[in-house]
């Protein structure tokens, strides 16, 4: 379906437009954004995105299409990171470095959201106010209201930035605890085979 879409003149024009919009959309674009910008229906946009993805994969390009945090992004492929790193000066690269405590707190928020600070602390067994401040300042979690209970504590949720930083399309892409076990053992097997 995608290849026939790609071969038609009209399809080519649509692809060029979608690609151009994605190129300038530094924060990514949703299917609705693309449909409005290109002036076509969302179904055709999805077909176009599929065709573009295929084009990048088949052509061994240095960029790819990724669906992250509810939006489509043009980004570099994983195996060219060394070249991009060399190009960018060290102070220009703003990679997020998160402590183990921050990752654990994020995991608790991600799997229990919306969640209060005391609930996070109850699970982790330690105080978390500083970690939560750090996560808030990174834009990885946000305050999503107050719980209707004693003291009306603040509720926390993960953000779209969280999804983008961790390479997730939606929060539902996070594996369950049992799936994490499988995933990690599969990765260990893969690593063993490649060695």
């Amino acid at each position, binding site marked *: 379906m995608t290849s026939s879409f790609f071969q038609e003149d009209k399809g080519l024009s649509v692809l060029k437009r979608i690609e151009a919009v994605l190129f300038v959309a530094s924060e990514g674009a949703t299917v609705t954004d693309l449909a409005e910008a290109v002036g076509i229906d969302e179904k055709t946009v999805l077909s176009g995105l599929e065709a573009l993805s295929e084009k990048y994969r088949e052509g061994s390009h240095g960029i790819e299409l990724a669906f992250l945090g509810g939006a489509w992004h043009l980004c570099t492929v*994983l195996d060219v990171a060394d070249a991009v790193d060399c190009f960018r000066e060290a102070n220009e690269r703003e990679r*997020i470095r998160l402590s183990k405590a921050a990752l*654990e707190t994020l995991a608790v928020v991600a799997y229990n959201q919306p969640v209060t600070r005391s609930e996070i602390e109850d699970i982790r067994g*330690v105080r978390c106010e500083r970690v939560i401040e750090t996560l808030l300042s990174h834009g990885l979690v946000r305050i999503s209201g107050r719980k209707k209970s004693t003291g009306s504590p603040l509720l926390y949720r993960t953000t779209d*930035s969280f999804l983008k930083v961790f390479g997730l399309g939606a929060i539902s892409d996070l*594996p369950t605890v049992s799936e994490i076990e499988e995933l990690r053992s599969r*990765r260990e097997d893969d690593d063993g085979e490649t060695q």
Partner: protein
Amino acid sequence: MIRIDIEGFSGPLDLLCHMMESREIEASSVSVAEVVRIYGAYHAQKGEVPIEAVAHFLVQAARLILDKALALMPQKVTDEADEVWDQEFVEDSPDIEDMLLRYRPYRKAAGLLAELLAETGLRSFRSPLPLPPSYDIGDLYSLSSIWWCLMKSREMVFYDPEDAWEDDHLAGMPAPIPEESQVENRMDLVMDELGNGRIYLSAFLRGRPGASELVVTILALLELSRGNRISLRQEEQFGDVLVLSRR
């Protein structure tokens, strides 16, 4: 709750998990003495320990000792009062095994997130990460972050002499005038309108509504009176003020 900060561990439960996994502590029978020794050594090494941390430490240590003591007793405790007390205690402080059981999945999830972060970090986007904080209704933190970002950018504009849009970034807004200049201007205006005659304050203020206008005018009149350039007369309390020229 003990606040603990050890390099490589995200908290006491993480440390306990690590010790159990590395067989430094048996999961089935947690060595109370070992746990107390490690925690005690950590706090002693740190030097500064808040009283709250010591209290929590003692509570947890006591809890471990109690569990251990109860586990060693062969006969069931039948004393009614003790049973009630024990029940209440368990409700207030969940068993450490239960806590670890609840905590472990998140530890694994954190490990997965670390892997995802490392992998996704190999991608580069046209806009660098982290992304700017997003605005959300009710999210005061984001609002204040945006406010401070704006303030910061404004400061940069003010302190950059080569910035081309310094002059018109407040286009349409009148330039602020120092208070002294405002009073001086008003003194000149009063003397112009007064001439060599007299004028009532209410007549002078007509067409100049607003509290700031009144304050500036009063200050100007007082300054003129102090300089013996005018005299002020009020016939009755809270009545109109007559301004007379002394030229």
